């Protein structure tokens, strides 16, 4: 399957079909907290996308070169210290700690950048910008990338390119969901919401209806794959890989 096709399917899958908020339930806290006004929501979505791309790039590098079993850098250092050992060095127990520090640094970087170049936006965000550190979405993206580095082979193993595409489109999917929610909530201000449900209650119910709507995207990636297969020149009927590609390629 062509490279561009696989990238495209990955992007669409991450942003729409497996939408981070509405399918994987990550990033709910800002989703409920910041979705009152569309411009704030858009700003939050953009900030999260920015942070998640930086964090994904850093965590991919750390995982690939240092942390996963048999990583190049660690193996090289180990061989310098202990030349005769054949043991496979596995630092993956430190994964979570490294990821959370990478995320905290990425948020710090973005905070400094926004404070320097967009001071009004910085004031508008207030406490929510440092709170992106505790946004489940970024850690979730790092964990997914980790799953596709350690012990994965073939199309399952993600290089830096696929990891970045995944991260960027995860952030964009989050931005889509939060902007839609903000648009709906702006309209809700004029409606008669029952008092017990005001605030988080009605937001969650609307999120449920949105999730129902987004469920309609399921299976789209299968059909996209089949569509792209048709464009590719017909290969040898006996070739096993051709039979396999609509099913086993990801």
């Amino acid at each position, binding site marked *: 399957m062509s490279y561009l096709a696989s990238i495209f399917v990955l992007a669409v899958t991450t942003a729409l079909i497996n939408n981070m908020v509405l399918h994987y339930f*990550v990033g709910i806290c800002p989703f409920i907290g910041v979705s009152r006004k569309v411009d704030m929501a858009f700003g939050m979505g953009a900030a999260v996308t920015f942070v998640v791309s930086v964090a994904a790039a850093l965590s991919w590098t750390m995982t690939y070169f240092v942390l996963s079993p048999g990583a190049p850098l660690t193996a090289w250092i180990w061989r310098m210290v202990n030349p005769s050992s054949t043991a496979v060095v596995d630092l993956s127990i430190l994964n*979570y700690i490294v990821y959370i520090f990478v995320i*905290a640094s990425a948020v710090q970087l973005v905070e400094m950048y926004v404070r320097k170049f967009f001071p009004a936006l910085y004031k508008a965000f207030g406490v929510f910008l440092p709170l992106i*550190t*505790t946004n489940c979405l970024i850690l*979730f993206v790092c*964990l997914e990338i980790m799953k596709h580095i350690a012990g994965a082979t073939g199309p399952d193993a993600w290089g830096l390119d696929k990891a970045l595409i995944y991260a960027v489109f995860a952030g964009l999917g989050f931005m889509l969901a939060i902007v839609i929610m903000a648009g709906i909530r702006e309209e809700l201000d004029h409606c008669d919401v029952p008092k017990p*449900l005001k605030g988080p209650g009605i937001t969650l*119910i609307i999120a449920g209806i949105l999730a129902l709507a987004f*469920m309609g995207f399921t299976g789209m990636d299968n059909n996209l794959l089949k569509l792209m297969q048709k464009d590719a020149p017909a290969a040898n009927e006996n070739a096993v890989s051709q039979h396999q590609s609509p099913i086993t390629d990801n």
Partner: protein
Amino acid sequence: MNKEGPTSLERFIGGILPENPIYRQILGMCPTLAVTNSMEGAMTMAGAVMFVLVCSNILISLIRHLLKPHLRILVFTLTIATFVTIADRFLAAYMYDMSKQLGPYIPLIIVNCVIIARCEICASKQGVFTAISDAVGQSLGFGLGLASIATVREILGFGTWFGQWLGWRVIPVTAPEHWSTWVVMILPPGAFITLGLLMGAVNWIAESRSRKVA
């Protein structure tokens, strides 16, 4: 109330209902929605959160006088990440099926706002015993919240309660002619709607109570 803040008993009782992390503080939403489609998943998550919360609170409370203000978030994060790693490895070793089912949501306990909030509000300011009772109270409240949602979702969605561990059926297997399971309850939309409605219910109860007292 002594000059150091709420007593241990107040912390303990507070964590269960009045300051329930899910319904009143609106923290820790991500695992709440993700693991509550079965009681086993919910209880495993509650147990893991209790382990991490209690251990972190004890440790932070012991070193609270050594914490510098601008480094304390760093220390909290380091502590929580370590205990979550231990819990995750433990689950993978001794409850492998559960670990596969809960997947990436156990490591997400690291960014669970409940734990960092408790470290910040209670453990870094009060003694070890208060910190422990706060942790236990909050995790019981968290577990209670998870259980309430998981009960609704599992009974309506599967017809069982604790189906995987105990195999209790609430809706008999032969009932499908009269009742078919609400599959949507197991899926994401069901999670959102259940939590939203339950939150409304809790708010309504709290409202009517405060009106009766006032």
